[in-house]
């Protein structure tokens, strides 16, 4: 006979593994919960304003010659109280880097620092006088953008939801 005062043995561990499988199967952790928590922590840590994704469309840019295949480009617009941000992603210009992504963007604030946070880390660019910026050599996968205005310390950073490029 076994008693509750015995040490936990292999059979108890096996029983618990079955309990774990039961609940993991019947009531799984939502697959994106951990990512959403990390995003919430980032927003919280930056005291950031979260931009709203308002528009996403698959643009098709056609070359001058009709024979050239159109290049599909994902274009996404975010808006927040203090600014709007439009980004479109496409392949890099050079042929030998098909697995890398170039992001062209436009932000309503000239001179803003736009940081792309990807699985590899982050890279940033400063928007020009017209608000345009280019971030290239990004990996495919999830990315979110953090926009700050180095010329104005009073504005809060703006963070976008994560999109796939």
């Amino acid at each position: 006979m076994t008693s509750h005062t015995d040490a936990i043995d292999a059979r108890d561990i096996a029983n618990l593994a079955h309990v774990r499988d039961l609940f993991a199967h019947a009531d799984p952790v939502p697959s994106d919960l951990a990512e959403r928590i990390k995003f919430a922590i980032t927003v919280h840590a930056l005291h950031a304003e979260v931009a709203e994704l308002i528009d996403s469309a698959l643009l098709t840019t056609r070359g001058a010659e009709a024979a050239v295949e159109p290049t599909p480009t994902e274009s996404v617009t975010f808006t927040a109280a203090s600014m709007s941000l439009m980004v479109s992603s496409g392949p890099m210009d050079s042929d030998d880097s098909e697995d890398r992504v170039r992001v062209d963007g436009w932000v309503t604030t000239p001179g803003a620092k736009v940081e792309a946070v990807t699985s590899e880390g982050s890279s940033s660019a400063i928007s020009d006088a017209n608000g345009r910026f280019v971030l290239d050599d990004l990996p495919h996968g999830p990315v979110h953008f953090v926009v700050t205005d180095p010329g104005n310390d009073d504005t809060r950073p703006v963070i976008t939801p994560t999109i796939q490029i």
Partner: protein
Amino acid sequence: MTPTPTAPDGLGTLAGKAFAAYRAGERERLSELVDLVTPVLWSAARSQGGVPAACEDAIQTAFLQLVDRADSINEPAAVLGWLVVVVKREVWRLARGARREFGVEEVPEAPAQQLDPEAQSILSERQRVLWKHVSTLSPRCQELLRVIAFADRPDYAAIAESLGMPVGSIGPTRGRCLQKLRTTLGSDPGWAV
């Protein structure tokens, strides 16, 4: 309360190391902590009977509180227990509405575990048998086993304490809940095969 730090090599220890590194300035280690402990926090939240959306909010709130209070937490090694306590309290607070704050001691007992019919329909035959036996345990035992099943052996005692169980209810000894599960499963010829 000060949860007991866990023995080496369990989930709690790994979580404690990641959190200590985060506090020391390695900010990216927080992601590791989130990945490590979210499954056990999910089981702790859901075992209180909260709806999924409330459980997600409770877990997120617990992490945000952890970030805010990171430097004032006395025992970084016990971060898993700290999170379990906050998650459990948050689920109950959300369930009652934000009318009043109440302390850990006032958190009611967990209800008997429920699986909705849809979830039950996807269980394997063997899981159905297991569920039948788990359902016969006391609600307190159901809660304890459901949560510790997502942790490692060295963490059992600390998690039990975080859930408000008496010291010695599990780990390093089997305790009554694991003993009951063992007995009820052992007496079922349908489980033994």
